[in-house]
């Protein structure tokens, strides 16, 4: 059984703030999800061929040719704040 996770780490990775009440609820929900996933570990797949992608279709590649992009104005138009042609976001330092 995998219950070894820290809800604070997970909310941190997802960059979301959780109240204590929400943490408790999510902790329970995620434990149930993990229990379900753990069930997969009991299946014997030793002799199975590995399917590495759910789709049987093979990837199509395109030629290396450039086509006109969005205009600068269109590319920026949904941004709430711009400066000197850049998108502006709150300071974000890792």
């Amino acid at each position, binding site marked *: 059984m995998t219950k070894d996770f820290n809800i604070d780490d997970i909310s941190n990775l997802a960059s979301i703030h959780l109240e204590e009440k929400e943490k408790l609820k999510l902790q329970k929900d995620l434990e149930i999800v993990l229990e379900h996933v753990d069930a997969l570990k009991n299946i014997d797949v030793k002799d199975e061929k590995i399917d590495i992608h759910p789709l049987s279709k093979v990837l199509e590649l*395109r030629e*290396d040719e450039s086509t006109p992009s969005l205009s600068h104005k269109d590319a920026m138009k949904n941004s709430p704040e711009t400066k000197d042609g850049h*998108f*502006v976001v709150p300071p974000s*330092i890792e």
Partner: protein
Amino acid sequence: MNLKPTIGMETHVELDTESKMFCSCKVVETDEPNISLCPTCLGLPGALPVPNKKAIEYIVMLSLGANCSITKEGMFHRKNYFYPDLPKNYQISQFDFPVGVEGSLEIVIEDSLHTVAIERVHMEEDTGKSIHLGSGRIDSATSTLLDFNRSGVPLVEVVTKPIISSAKMAVAYIEELRQLVIDLGISKGKLEKGNLRFDANISVAEEGSDELGVKVEIKNMNSLKSLEKAIDYEILRQTKMVQDKESIIQETRHWDENKQVTLSMRTKEGSADYRYFSDPDLPNMVINDEFIEISQNQIKETPEKKRKTLLDTGLSLSDSNYLDKGQRWLYELYLSTVKETGDCKSTFNFLTGELQGQMRKAEISELPQWLNSEKLASLINLFENNEVSFTSAKDILAKLLIEDIDPKSFASDNNLIQSSDNDEIKALVTSIINENQDIVERLENPEDKLVGYLVGQVMKSSKSKVNPGSVKEVLLKELFG
């Protein structure tokens, strides 16, 4: 306790394609921000990625050039992390089925060959660029500006096994990898432009131990010099910590160029934190034998092959490596010139010393059209056969750089051909001996430094038109019999 460092390198190579990795936006090199964008590279909802065939060819070429096996049935994964320069909140990358696996690169350190094992070569996309505004310090920025022109540019990550044992070895590896991508023609390979970016994973452990120490990742080294300094610094830091019984934490540190130290950035995510999962937008990527053959046929040259060609001319390993990593024209010029002179060392010395030196001084970056290997070989032969002095050879070269002349005719017309006529030399020697009796009386043996002085006087009086070797011979005979 004897500690040994272990280093693994992760290098990102920006491929030189016309369009981006998963969309048809042009790859641009400009300071004008946000001019080559579409819904795909902006990560807008509903946009779908379509991979660039040329980029896949290039990564197969790089994998083959690094002697890797090719994963014929591979796939793309989503590497999830939150950072504003990554608009989708995930990077399309590869996880357990990278294009190239288990390769190796031959590297040269001074005069010896070493092998660096390559663990994987995988395909991914670049992020945008962030500019942090504020007081200048990254951690007190007031806002961040984003330019997504680079977002989605094809990027290959080459990861070595943790087997590099010194900063010098890491530098030699990066030099080899850089030359490989240049020779393959798949990247411009300019460090200063960020075409090649590298991180070093460093740990120290007790000598003889099978286990590695705690790994620290060093980022932000943008030149070979800073790579070398950062690794040396980090090895010292960790060694001291272990000796002082302090525990090293797994983290990412950045190299501070001004302070010349590594500083902690953040605790390093483990692979699980990236929540890799196969990208449902991109079905399996099949690289069949035909595709591999097409890619293989595009490989015309690798640094390893060039080095072998150079070694075959008789050059030493370090001289071969020097030409291998230098400019293409110099490598070609050496090969065609040595064919005519038959003397590898004097050809190498003349081209890398005199020719490059004079070109640098005169600020010439390209050889004049007329200055071909035939003329250079003729000039090298003139001084190697003692027909002109080295000083005259230098003067002839200077002339050749600005005017189309024939070195031999020029030497004759300008009275630069040295005389090996013994009577003429004998007369000059006698006259110098007579003029320098005080010195002659102080001479003790043929090895005396004053012999060199007297040879110099004879050369001066002849205006360098006699062969110094013959002068010395005659002088010693006259003085010591």
